């Protein structure tokens, strides 16, 4: 796990999934816009507090508004916001698109305080505990369909390296796709506060080649579905 830890932090993680590449791109543009706008505003504020110190008793000009400045600023703000919305919307449509023929379909159930991964089509079921976090094995480069729900209180399935989370809510099944683009072992956690062991409600995503994935599926079928974390190891981070 120590070798995987660096890639599991999510600190500038590169793009571990197709969706993460999209999210990273949106983030980069928003960050640039934020730095640009905040930079201009900071320069103006510091200009004011340095340049317009009180020197003597005279009254400064008592102007009360400036229609052109106010209108231009409003228009600029609307334009920036509209551009950001267009970018964000287009990206969200791509992120939330569901592939009609996923390579794997997994039902993810959060419960106090671990996760259950049920592979559709007679595949294995992996159930974890706080001390033995479960492993979600997925094929690299193929769309994986996730249906997520909760057996009790709200949870959230969060893989920092994927820059993505989705809530697990009882009574609601919500669906998303992941296409992991880089083989590896990724740290996952519960992001929605769910009680005492919230901080220990971890899991691992193990992204392996499609061949290795198929072999893992076969082994799990013949091994009669033992419970607990996969042999590939990744214990608690």
């Amino acid at each position: 796990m120590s070798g995987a830890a660096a890639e599991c932090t999510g600190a500038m993680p590169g793009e571990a999934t197709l969706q993460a590449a999209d999210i990273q791109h949106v983030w980069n543009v928003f960050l640039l816009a934020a730095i640009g706008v905040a930079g201009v505003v900071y320069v103006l504020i510091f200009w004011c507090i340095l340049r317009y110190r009180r020197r003597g008793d005279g009254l400064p000009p008592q102007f009360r508004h400036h229609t052109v400045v106010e209108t231009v600023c409003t228009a600029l703000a609307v334009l920036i916001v509209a551009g950001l919305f267009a970018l964000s919307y287009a990206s969200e449509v791509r992120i939330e698109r569901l592939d009609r023929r996923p390579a794997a379909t997994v039902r993810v159930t959060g419960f106090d305080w671990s996760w259950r991964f049920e592979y559709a089509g007679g595949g294995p079921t992996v159930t974890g505990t706080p001390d033995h976090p479960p492993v979600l094995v997925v094929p690299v480069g193929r769309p994986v369909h996730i249906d997520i729900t909760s057996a009790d209180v709200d949870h959230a399935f969060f893989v920092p390296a994927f820059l993505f989370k989705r809530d697990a809510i009882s009574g609601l099944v919500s669906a998303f796709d992941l296409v992991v683009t880089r083989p590896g072992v990724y740290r996952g956690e519960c992001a929605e506060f769910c009680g005492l062991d919230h901080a220990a409600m971890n899991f691992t995503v193990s992204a392996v080649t499609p061949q290795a994935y198929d072999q893992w599926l076969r082994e799990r079928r013949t091994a009669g579905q033992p419970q607990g974390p996969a042999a590939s190891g990744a214990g608690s981070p």
Partner: protein
Amino acid sequence: MSTAATLAAPGPRLGLLGWLTTTNHKQIGVLYMATTLGFFVVAGVMALLIRADLTVPNHPIVERQTYAELFTLHGTGMIFLVIAPFGLGLANYILPLQIGAPDMAYPRLNALSYWLFLLGGLVLMSGLLTRDGAAAAGWVAYAPLSTTGSPGSGMDLWIVGLLMVSASSIMTAINLIATTLLYRAPGMIMWRIPVFCWDMVVTSLIILMAFPPLAATLAMLLIDRRLGGHAFDPSQGGSAVVYQHLFWFFGHPEVYVMVLPYFGMITEIIPVFSRKPVFGYTAFVLTTLAIAGLSMTVWAHHMFTTGAVVNPFFSAMSLLIAVPTGIKYVNWIGTMWGGAIVFPTAMLFAVGFLLNFLIGGVTGVMIASPPIDFWAEDTYFIVAHMHYVLGGGSLFALFAAVYYWFPKITGVMLRDGWGRLQFWLMFVGFNATFWPMHMLGLWGMQRRVVTYPALPGWGTANLIASLGSAVLAAGVLVFLWNLWVSLRLPVPAGPDPWGGYTLEWATTSPPPEFNFETIPPIRSERPVFDLHHPGAAS
């Protein structure tokens, strides 16, 4: 300059019975603000315990249950018992003065509001004394964690306490609106009331729209818990998603209840210390109204990750609300532009507000984008964002307001030297505490965890945050010391120590029981300035 001879004598000093039975808006305002100071210290100590717990990876120092109680009561306390009610308390004191009224419209309702607020706050916190401990489901109290997941009576006390506080807020909102609409002095048309009063009227409108749904939601929660209801129980046809909708339909407007009053306060302070009128008064009022309208349409941006809401609509509305908020920066910069600026402590804190709130503003735009929110939601990035808005923003404006109006309320000055020290400690401490949380969130550290693994960078960032919180706390201690020193060795303030613009500066400090003997003519939104500068164009 008004001479003391034309001013009435200050109000009489009150005994204990006087404070307990008062219906005067000024005394109720003081009670409100003193109470929020008490709750601020309590909720602040809780925050320090949270930071102490998180200083080192894998080494929690409090029990998991205690930790959950701490962040629940810290959040609930700061939001419902400090930031929101301080605005109402200050308005209680200042708003009638600023519009030239003798008192609030309904003085006895006003007293009821205060006592309900105090009692509600104590009930809310009293869960700490029960065997099962206080509420521990976070300040959002998502069902089913807050129903079947929290069997102890602490949760019930939390709900009942909040019901009382919300009833109190609704009463105060009605009172502030009625006072402003009905009790303005002759000449004080709505387009001449100070910006702070506009912000309080709009805040009150938001309270009237948002708090009844909160009260209903809390009542449903209580019915689910104790009377066999199933509103939020999916196994019986209820919905956990509906709880989130109801809560945030209140919860996001509540953010503006915690922000608009503070916009108003610094918009009183910046013009006075820049010696200029507020730039774009009309634009300021219109953008405040726009924020109030938009604030009712953005709630589900707290639910982007549920997969159960129409994300693009709520994203568009949330991005749009940045426009009127951004225009306010045009107002504030335009007010300082070309001015003659001085920097007593109040102005320092107002500029600190501008610098900090901006960061909370731009990160708010970021997380209004659903793709970014998929990453940042429920991580420390959100904790950073929200503290830059409410801590670096509202709390800094709160101290600006305290330094600005303390002389009016008590008749004595707060020490400027201690004030400056407090500002710099708080400014450095605040940014050291909350800036690293942006990084922690992006690295994947989720909220509300009692401990965290030793991943690269996490230990360092958390250590800096914890050290920063100690510096921040030192700033607050300096403030308490300043209060003590300034009241023990009083430096008289006189009626108008700042060259103020609005009517509260035309009476004594503190003002007499019914505020004014005579009121200067009101020809603009700054009648006292007009009085002192008859030649200046207004």
